[in-house]
């Protein structure tokens, strides 16, 4: 009759509680993964729609209009098309590497998602839920590691395709991402110094408690460097060397088709989302707003996740905006900008931040 009692007696109350907590934690994480992945994939689909609409209206045309009202179902139609398209594999490719590279590219992008805190931690039914899937103390380092992993996907696809265009695209991308990763990392050092932590949640909290509200104000130079490097890191105009359409046809994924190409596409858009999230978290206060803005009545009722997404989308819009405005850099000029301007600027920024920190 007293099964619960029996189990309690044999396993021990303490252990049972630990097991229960583990189960709950496990369930929560699983739930979070499902939510974040589902939302992100849908987001990517509609980010393409958003991009096409935004750029369309900037270029005196309408963008997608045919599938659904105002073309709202266009991303779904595109996804279905890519999914059911014939998967063409050129005969001379290095097959295992060719298969693996889109998975690495996409996997690295998706794995980075787990460190992004979307909102402050909150409690439901007595369970404390953190804003990110994995609240890691060295989250920033992890993010860099994963975005560095993505380069392998690009380079391997360029190499294995056995095509000269893809090869050149892969080479360009590798050198570009490596150069800009330095600038990206150095620009964030200022933020790390100010927040005293690599944990993204802590960085947001540090901004909430600071006088400025946004780190973008004291870290202005770092902010500029980061934004430029982030655009280069996600291979977007004006730094879209690796896939420069008019030079290298489609760059490293020239030989890919069907769903494999879609994986690269997804990876690129998720990468864009992650870079936008990083800007929002490290420089624009994540899910918080500065105290001087929060003094406006009613604004404090807006949930943190809304603030966060607004910042992210504002930055994604910025991505699209410069795509519609700027021509493309040449490869050597791009390297020049990275090494001669951004890296020295980021270093100077670190020095200034450090001196400031010591003196005050």
């Amino acid at each position: 009759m007293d099964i619960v009692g029996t189990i309690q007696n044999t396993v021990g109350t303490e252990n049972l509680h630990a097991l229960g907590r583990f189960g709950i934690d496990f369930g929560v994480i699983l739930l979070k993964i499902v939510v974040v992945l589902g939302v992100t994939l849908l987001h990517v689909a509609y980010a393409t729609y958003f991009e096409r609409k935004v750029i369309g209206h900037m270029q005196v045309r309408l963008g997608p209009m045919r599938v659904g009202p105002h073309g709202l179902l266009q991303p779904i139609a595109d996804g279905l098309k890519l999914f059911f398209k014939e998967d063409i594999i050129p005969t001379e490719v290095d097959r295992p590497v060719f298969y693996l590279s889109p998975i690495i590219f996409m996997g690295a992008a998706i794995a980075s998602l787990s460190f992004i805190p979307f909102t402050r931690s909150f409690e439901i039914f007595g369970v404390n839920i953190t804003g990110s899937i994995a609240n890691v103390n060295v989250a920033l380092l992890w993010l860099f590691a994963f975005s560095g992993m993505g380069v392998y996907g690009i380079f391997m696809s360029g190499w294995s395709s056995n095509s000269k265009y893809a090869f050149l695209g892969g080479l360009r991308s590798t050198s570009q991402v490596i150069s800009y990763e330095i600038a990206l990392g150095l620009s964030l050092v200022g933020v790390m110094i100010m927040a005293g932590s690599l944990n993204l949640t802590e960085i947001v909290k540090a901004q909430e408690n600071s006088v400025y509200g946004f780190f973008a104000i004291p870290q202005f130079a770092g902010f500029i460097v980061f934004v430029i490097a982030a655009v280069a890191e996600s291979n977007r105009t004006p730094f879209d060397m690796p896939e420069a359409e008019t030079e290298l046809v489609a760059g490293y994924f020239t030989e890919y088709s069907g769903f494999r190409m879609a994986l690269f596409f997804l990876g690129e858009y998720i990468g864009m989302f992650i870079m936008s999230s990083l800007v929002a978290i490290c420089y624009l206060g994540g899910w918080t707003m500065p105290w001087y803005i929060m003094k406006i009545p009613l604004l404090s009722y807006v949930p943190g996740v809304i603030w966060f997404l607004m910042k992210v989308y504002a930055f994604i819009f910025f991505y699209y905006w410069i795509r519609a405005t700027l021509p493309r850099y040449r490869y050597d000029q791009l390297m020049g900008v990275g090494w001669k301007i951004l890296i020295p600027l980021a270093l100077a920024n670190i020095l200034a931040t450090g001196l400031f920190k010591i003196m005050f």
Partner: protein
Amino acid sequence: MEEVEKILETRELNVSMGPQHPATHGVLRLILDLDGERIVKVTPHVGYLHRGIEKLGESLNYFQALPLTDRLDYVSAMSNNIGYCVAVEKLLGIEAPKRAKFIRTIVGEMSRIANHLLWLATHALDIGAMTVFLYCFRDREWILELYEEVCGARLTVTYPRIGGVRNDISQQFIDSLSKFLDEFPSRILEYETLIDQNRIWLQRTIGIGVLTAEEAVSWGLTGPTLRGSGVPYDVRKNAPYDAYDQVEFEVPIGSEGDVYDRYRCRMHEFHQSIKIIRQCIEKLPPGPVMADEAKFTFPPKDAMFPVTHPTKQHAFYIQEKPCKGCGMCRRACPVGAITGEKKKPHKINQDICLVCGNCYATCKFKALFLVPGGHGLSEEEMQKILESPIPDDVANASKLFLDHFTYVKKGPVAPKGELYVATEVPKGELGFYFVSDGTGKPFRMRLRSPSFIHAGALPRLCVGHLVADVIANIGTIDIVLGECDR
């Protein structure tokens, strides 16, 4: 070390750019030898779009070859038509009426604007400025709509004719053209806002593909590609045709001879073209638009079909007396409408007859007569018409109709000799060289197309630069492969 070098043989990466490539402006193929990203050697391959237009021209009448010129540089078909017509007119020794010359100048400059818009669109897209591409297409569309108002066609217009233009322009067209001219300068400003002072654009274009004036001349470059290097050569100024000697305009030239200078030259030409069109509209004289030369031009259609017989077609009729029954006309008839036994008068079955005039042209005995408005009439009625006095306009109509037949059959008969005539098309100097043997067809027709000569200069422009500069250079010489390959 030497052993290692022996084992590790280093050679250039050989990339075939085109003929299927998004930035080679059609089917140009470049074999690039790359040392890393730097270009060691460029070998242009042309001919993927060869349609034998020069050879076709030899088997067609002068006026029949006119639509072929649309297919040369399909981006600015109007200019090619004008170039061809100016050349043939000079060969035949006729002159277009003044009004036609002004109209040609107007549409020619419209074509220059349309061409430069497409050039700017693709050049900017190649360098990555995507929005300029769509802005330019918006305005090019406007010009194509104006073309449509003039002649009904948008791309392959065939509007200018040997001895004038096909039809007059209306006041309505002039109004909508003036509206375009008022609006367009603000559009140029829009493109310039996007790229003219843009740092990336400047970095991509300044100092790229530099050609000195001497080099540009010795490569045979013409048009804005030459003028970018500072050589003020323009056929419109140096050897004026049409109405160019009656309008004022400047020839913009560059100083450095790089991609940016050539870009600036073409942007200035927009303004000059607007200026020329404005003056032409102001000075547009009244009068006919076709030369009154029965041997060299088509007769006007409304005079060929007079009001006396508004609904009925003309018909051919074989008179019994002169007909010897030789059977020539029977063999010449494409539809077999003529029947009859040998050495007896033949007859035409009017239900099948196409009124093509082949029988008329072959008959040696002048047995065939044209009965104006005679289609569907019985033989007696035709006889009656032939016997009764014919009104003047009908008589004139039948004369014109027969002129038309001879003209179509023989073509405009040119005197013997050779001739080279050049005109300034948007891309440079388009020259037509004819060898005439005294018939209605050229013995030899040869084109000097600017695109072909510009493509030859590509290796000189590209070597030593990077891959990305190749497309900037392809853009700057403004190449269209339809004209290059012919």
